[in-house]
């Protein structure tokens, strides 16, 4: 069966930065079409595989990013994706404009950390803001990903529906410029 396939599979990497994973869930909302999709694409780094770094096995054709940028690690992952993906897509409200996590932008970061880890009720004695070097440093503000690297496509929605993601992917795989009809384009 495999011998009949002549075009190589598109290599796709995905990740979630400061998001809620809802966009990845919406990706899975393509339901049984996922079984069709895996005939056309091969997954590189993704929360669904155990490949930990994108680009380790050669350049990816497509990188899909969920979530905005809220800490130093997000910046590193995003830059790794940009470097190793030919096309980079901002998937969902948080990647496109920061989304709900960016609601913290009008509050001083230190104040939030103080409240959550030091002064809020129900904390055991001696609780302090976590500061281990293993923890990535939070940024002062949550940023949309286009402020950090160049983005080729923006897919709005919180999350974009499974149908919208399917249309986008099938357009791209077929070599068409992705377009979404009015009913697939929404922002909630």
């Amino acid at each position, binding site marked *: 069966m495999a011998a009949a396939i002549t075009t190589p599979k598109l290599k796709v990497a995905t990740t979630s930065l400061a998001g809620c994973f809802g966009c990845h869930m919406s990706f899975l909302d393509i*339901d049984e079409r996922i079984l069709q999709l895996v005939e056309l694409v091969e997954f590189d780094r993704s929360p669904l595989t155990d490949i930990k770094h994108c680009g380790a096995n050669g350049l990816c054709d497509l990188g899909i990013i969920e979530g905005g940028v809220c800490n130093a690690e997000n910046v590193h992952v995003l830059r790794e994706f940009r470097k190793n993906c030919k096309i980079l897509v901002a998937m969902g409200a948080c990647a496109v404009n920061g989304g709900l996590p960016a609601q913290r932008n009008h509050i001083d970061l230190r104040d939030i950390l103080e409240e959550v880890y030091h002064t809020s009720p129900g904390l055991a004695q001696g609780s302090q803001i*976590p500061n281990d070097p293993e923890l990535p440093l*939070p940024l*002062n503000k949550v940023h949309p990903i286009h402020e950090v690297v160049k983005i080729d496509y923006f897919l709005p929605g919180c999350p974009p529906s499974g149908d919208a993601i399917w249309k986008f992917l099938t357009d791209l795989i077929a070599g068409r410029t992705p377009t979404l009809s009015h009913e697939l384009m929404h922002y909630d």
Partner: protein
Amino acid sequence: MTYELETAIHPEKLRRVAIDPVSRVEGHGKVTILLDDKNQVHQVRLHIVEFRGFERFIQGRPYWEVPVMVQRLCGICPVSHHLAASKALDVMLGIKHLTPTAEKNRKLMHYGQMLQSHALHFFHLSSPDLLFGFDSEVAKRNIVGVAAAHPDIAKKGVLLRKYGQEVIRHTAGKRIHGTGAIPGGVNKSLSSAERATLLKDAYQMVSWAHDAVQIIKQLYTATPELYDVFGTFRSNYMSIVAPDGGLDFYHGALRARDADGKVIFDQIDYQGYNDLIEEEVRPWSYMKFPFLKQLGRENGWYKVGPLARVQNCDHIPTPLAEAERKEFVAYGKGQPIHATLAYHWARMIEMLFSAEMIKELLHDDDIEGSDLMTTGTRQPGVEAEGVGVIEAPRGTLFHHYRVGEDDLVTMANLIVSTTNNNQAMNTAVREVAKKYLNGKEITEGLLNHIEVAIRAYDPCLSCATHALGQMPLEIAIVDAEGTVIDEATRDHRGLTRPQ
């Protein structure tokens, strides 16, 4: 406070190995392991690198926004946050009972959520380890590999999840981040057409969920020498139970048991959760460590989620799941089962229970009713308060709000399910490291053993991490003109900020 393998005495002399990110879990976490030159393990930590501050930034928002805001904490179980918030705000508004239609539609939404989340976890995320082996080939160890080797299992998994998502869509308006529940009730009930559509497949889902229990039971009982001992440790466990002690994911009161199964407390109204639970912060994780106050930090931590719930309840109120529960409990021969991998078995029993509950609720005519809202008398005083608790897919979830006279939120406290399992997950990975990694050359397959233990808890760690090796000390975001728009630096004391 000391826990075995949590903190090495001389970390500077040890070699660091990181699993970063932990994959095939929902959200991101990182494991660090410190080893000496003989590969003896001295320290193992599961770090949660997420910090988002929801509790702070929803302050000042009108309370009716809260159920749709807080579900954005998690796209895998948004319904749990949506409903826990709605339940807390029902209390705040002085509402004692919802209309039968509202209550049943909320329950239907929740059981749809339990079904889809458990299916996703078992089939899409964990089944590759269980079907192929913990150290099988990386390229195959994912849902695509399962689809190729076991197309029937993969297809049922995809369709079970789809059905749960459709139940959510019909009750909440949208598969992810819907709006169905509002303080005081729901904004829609099921139409006759929607009910008929869902009923059409309900029996098939019960049957497939039943098959799923048989798959995991078979895997488990075929290799007890692995499943019984892998990451096994004793601990307390907690969940809500119905007034009659039955399993209920939507509502109940708190019950906790010790490692021998003896009841610590029972039928405690969760409005007073603050008297029962305290949270500790450790410097190396953004996720807190809760414990039962009466037992103290060292002895008071507990497990939540499927393994806790299935053994904490006295019965399951649906026939097929109850028969499976009895068989599961019998396997323990009178003792609670503490095996980490038994989470999978318990989770599939819960998925079956959810499928049966969906079928039952769809047969109830109240589900199509038109009486959607209740009003109450708001608590007197400047601030009104409410606590909402629900059994989310991953365990007991607490939402607590205070609202001012102007209807704006003044305080929020959330203890999410995975937080309740923080110490348990850390203990599980240390047990696995001790038994499987100690003294061996560290391979990818051995490291996956650590991840298998974490996956069993189905943690939801939403947020991000990455980078093998050196952690960055400084990062700057620069715009196209070369102007620095944000940066993070760390000095020897921890966090510092440039002016």
